């Protein structure tokens, strides 16, 4: 891995700006995979299907950054990665706002796609963030999803490639 940017911030981000930084410096990038997570209006667990008006995101300063660093380093052991950017917003975020960004550059697309998906799966289950869902009538801390735990398990079978 050539560069790693980890940022936990209240302010919004621009995908173009993050990609431009990677592209400006280096001429060997052939592939750039990104993932952006957004606040959805309807929430899976909310059985009444009440519209979410916002999310509140909390983290553990210090530990969260360490978690993300470890996840990025693990991805780097598995795939030939050039640059990684991980941004996660905290505080109150409204519907359609951006929550999280993961960008991975590589020479070829397989590594970029796989590492980007890997980082998201582990961010969801290993990084110290907590999310509260706010509707017109209630606030509720979101429960960890079984499907997210399963998503990380599939990577156990992935052999180290480097």
């Amino acid at each position, binding site marked *: 891995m050539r560069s790693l940017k980890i940022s936990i911030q209240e302010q919004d981000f621009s995908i173009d700006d993050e990609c431009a930084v990677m592209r400006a410096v280096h001429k060997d990038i052939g592939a750039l995979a990104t993932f952006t997570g957004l606040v959805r209006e309807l929430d899976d667990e909310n059985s009444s299907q009440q519209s979410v008006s916002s999310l509140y995101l909390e983290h553990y300063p210090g530990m969260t950054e360490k978690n993300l660093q470890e996840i990025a380093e693990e991805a780097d052991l598995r795939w030939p990665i050039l640059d990684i950017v991980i941004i996660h917003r905290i505080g109150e975020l409204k519907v359609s706002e951006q929550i999280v960004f993961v960008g991975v550059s590589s020479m070829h697309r397989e590594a970029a796609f796989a590492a980007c998906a890997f980082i998201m799966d582990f961010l*969801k289950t290993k*990084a110290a*963030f*907590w999310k509260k869902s706010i509707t017109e009538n209630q606030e509720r*801390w979101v429960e960890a999803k079984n499907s997210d735990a399963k998503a990380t398990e599939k990577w156990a079978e992935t052999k180290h490639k480097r």
Partner: protein
Amino acid sequence: MATVHYFASIREKLGLSTEQLELPSQVDTVNALVALLIEQHGSSWEEVLKKSSVLVAVNQSVVSFTSPVTNGDEVAFFPPVTGG
């Protein structure tokens, strides 16, 4: 002194985000620290901190409740993470 942080639903239920306390020498594991906290704050803390889903980190690494703690450590209690 040990620093203890509480996050998310645990912070809200306990009504406390951070405290510092002197650990007596016999309080040398997370389990013993939990017993001390319940003793100091009252039995309402028991159902919050003894819930099976609660996670603990010592010095910013997730550990088991049988792990050692000592004065100077940073301990944190939190529910399963839900970021992203």
